[in-house]
């Protein structure tokens, strides 16, 4: 392959994995839905989309109504259709799952959402102007959801985003196989059409202060996500590539992303799996995931683990990286210690204990780490009350600072952080903010 061919191949290697349903596939799948009453899929969905209702509308070819049903509960239906861990949520609760195949709810949702985006149909309009102004910090799913809901209610919303592009993890952090960047950006455009002003390249406490916000806005919503990937604190750390950056480059600059031949990914969560997928699909001959516990403790969803095994990625469990060895700035090997599982630690999982004298070395030329993200630094910067480092909010999503609300990953003290949970936070916070703005006159 020539260089150009290789670059083109790379562009396609991370194309969306699942093809869209054809009209007939969608019709057959929609007809299969039993239309449960008070359906468990709807209960399981964090945004409680009326799933039988939107599916039946596909069956009757009322796709506009179907998409509206989805977006009334979840403005980011196109993203969620792609990135939701449906096995753990709606499809996992489908009554047909026990003896048959559950309804492909995610793919049906994508079918309806793709229809309205392809046709450029605007399903919602900005509400009648209330004269109230809300600032949102962070244009990820929680911020977009909150902003969109507030705009529907007639509030003037400004979304401040520190990065160049809005969309948060949907734009930067979710592997293209699951969600292409264009889908995330189309949703941002939909939110902007509702009247939400997006100001990119603006960071709180750098380009403006909380005092500025309090002076110029009637309320604020913090949806700042999480911090950077923590360091491993091992020699040679500077040679390790950050997994979030690896995914971002694969989405926005795939042709120039350097992929090793022998890649190690440290970590065994969903992000680590995405990194391993990128390495494998963009040309690494061997990809190994190194994890200090075992497959039982790994935090990746079961279906993600199944997927990555089929991709041909190898696993090195019970291994703790201790040093990256390099020669002339080029990675040569990763030294690890063999671990054994001890008593449960604070996370409730067995704690890994090093086995003395068990050092071994993996010959690698690229090391990527995906070992979770740090707590949001803003919590302490703004002196907000926190809970285990996450921003503390009350039942109305209000922080310890009156009129300042928060949602999304930055408040996720328990449960799996996910896009759909962030969308729900944004939606519920918008309701609380609305009530505050309306009751304060």
């Amino acid at each position, binding site marked *: 392959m020539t260089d150009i061919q290789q670059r083109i191949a790379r562009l396609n290697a991370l194309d969306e994995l699942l093809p869209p349903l054809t009209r007939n596939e969608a019709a057959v799948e929609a007809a299969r839905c039993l*239309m*449960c009453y008070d359906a468990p899929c709807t*209960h399981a969905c964090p945004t*409680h989309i009326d799933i039988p209702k939107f599916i039946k509308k596909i069956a009757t070819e009322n796709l506009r109504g179907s998409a509206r049903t989805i977006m009334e509960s979840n403005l980011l239906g196109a993203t969620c259709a792609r990135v939701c861990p449906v096995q*753990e949520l709606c499809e*996992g*609760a489908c009554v047909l799952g026990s003896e048959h195949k559950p309804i492909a709810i995610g793919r049906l949702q994508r079918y309806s959402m793709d229809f309205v985006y392809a046709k450029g149909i605007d399903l919602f309009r900005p509400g009648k102007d209330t004269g109230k102004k809300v600032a949102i910090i962070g244009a990820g799913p929680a911020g977009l959801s909150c902003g969109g809901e507030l705009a529907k209610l007639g509030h003037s919303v400004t979304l401040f985003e520190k990065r160049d592009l809005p969309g948060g993890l949907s734009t930067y952090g979710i592997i293209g196989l699951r969600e292409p960047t264009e889908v995330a950006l189309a949703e941002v455009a939909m939110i902007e059409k509702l009247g939400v002003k997006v100001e990119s390249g603006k960071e709180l406490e750098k380009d403006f202060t909380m005092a500025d916000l309090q002076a110029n806005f009637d309320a604020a919503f913090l949806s700042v996500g999480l911090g950077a990937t923590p360091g491993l604190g091992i020699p040679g750390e500077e040679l390790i590539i950050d997994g979030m950056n690896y995914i971002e480059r694969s989405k926005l600059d795939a042709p120039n992303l350097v992929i090793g031949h022998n890649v190690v990914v440290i970590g065994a969560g969903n992000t680590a799996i995405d990194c391993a997928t990128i390495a494998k699909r963009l040309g690494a001959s061997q990809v190994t995931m190194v994890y200090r516990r075992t497959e039982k403790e790994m935090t990746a969803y079961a279906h993600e683990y199944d997927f990555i095994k089929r991709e041909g990625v190898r696993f090195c469990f019970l291994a703790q990286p201790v040093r990256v060895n390099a020669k002339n700035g080029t990675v040569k090997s990763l030294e690890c210690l063999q671990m054994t599982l001890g008593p449960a630690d604070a996370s409730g999982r067995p704690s890994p204990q090093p086995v003395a004298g068990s050092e071994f070395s993996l010959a690698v030329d690229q090391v990527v780490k995906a070992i979770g993200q740090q707590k949001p630094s803003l919590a302490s910067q703004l002196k907000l009350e926190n809970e285990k480092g996450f921003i503390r909010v009350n039942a109305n999503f209000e922080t310890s600072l009156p009129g300042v609300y928060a949602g999304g990953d930055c408040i996720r003290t328990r449960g799996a952080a996910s896009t759909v949970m962030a969308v729900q936070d944004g939606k519920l916070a918008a309701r609380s903010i609305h009530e505050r703005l309306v009751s304060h006159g």
Partner: protein
Amino acid sequence: MADLSIDFAGIRSPNPFWLASAPPSNSGMQVHRAFEAGWGGAVWKTIGAPVLNVSNRYGAWHYGGQKMVAINNVELISDRPLEINLREIAEVKRAWPDRAVVVSAMVESKPETWHDIIHRIQDTGADGIELNYGCPHGMSERGMGSAVGQVPEYCEQITRWVMEVAKIPVIVKLTPNISDIVMPARAAVAAGANAVSLINTLNSIIGVDLDTLEITPSIGGKGGHGGYAGPAVKPIALNMLAALGKDEVVGGSKLPISGMGGISTWRDAAEFLLLGASSLQVCTAVMHYGFRIVEDLCDGMSNWMDEKGFKGVSDVVGRSLHRVSDFNNFDLSFRAVARIDQQKCIRCNLCYVACNDAAHQCIDLIAKDGRIVQPQSYDIQANGREEAVSSRPGVYVREEDCVGCRLCYNVCPVEDCVRMIEEPSRQPSVTWGQLSESQREVTEDWEKMQKYRERMGIHIH
């Protein structure tokens, strides 16, 4: 192994499955291939008056992902020249002496044209003749087909003309586009026909195109009523079949009946036999899947008959007919209640909403702790598979309030999950017919009815 062979009014075939007079039996080549596939007989596509056909002649009704629940057509009788049809009929019969070759005919309503066509059919060596009094479109406007079938006097007259010259068995095919199917059947009996067959297609408009606002199918911008057939018409056919069997004139005549109308599987076929048909005709299922379906028609029928201990088709014919009755004769004291098998239930709540919105509000949602709960009563912050599945209430019938309407049984998507349990009667057995005779006032006056109910302990909430 069960013997599937039949002798239908003197027409013999190795199994009861015949192609109905329709597009699958349009040519010698097709009937030849059908016989190779195992069909016991074929009723040749109707020959007779000259015709011209149109394009977009078939419409279909697709429902819930199932293609062709019904088909409708404005195709006319055979548009191939009469001579070619007659020659091919003779060839097929010579090649397949053990199969039933029946020829459907429809000509102008004159004795001489009917005499002529009957002679020519008999010259082919065919085993029988079917008189097409059913075609509801195209031919009826010309005074043929259902224009004859809808008027018992015409039926009788034309059948008499046919019987004057017929030397082989004659089957009169009835149209269902009539308020009482028994009347033309009685006419056939009176005229001396050897058998009847039913049903032909029903008048129908399959639909309207919501983009073009044209009738489906659109024939150059126009459309209209066409003959309706396929799985959706089966219950109508079964009812008409039973009506003939129960009629004292038609049933009493013991005239054999060839049943058709939506037969797709051996199961459908067995039902037609049980209600009195002694040969069976199939069209739409062949149009959908081809001749090969006859294999399972025979195989399934044979296995079922073996299982039930039926040695031959005649053991099955009419076996359920004595159970066909009418409301007047139903036991008003018969009682059944619905019971839901909690092990099989998948918690779709379809029975709950059907009972609650459309029946008698006697199914409750009961949480694990025994409380009756309302739908959608979960916390909106709660989510996830585990939470949704583990907190889902069960559905339970309050049997004391259940009237046994059987709606829940019908909507339940799980096999044998809702069962109708027969309960001991609370009143002495009585039918509406008996009640109208013995206590006529109760059946005519609400106040007396209320008193009767109180006396009998009948409480309807």
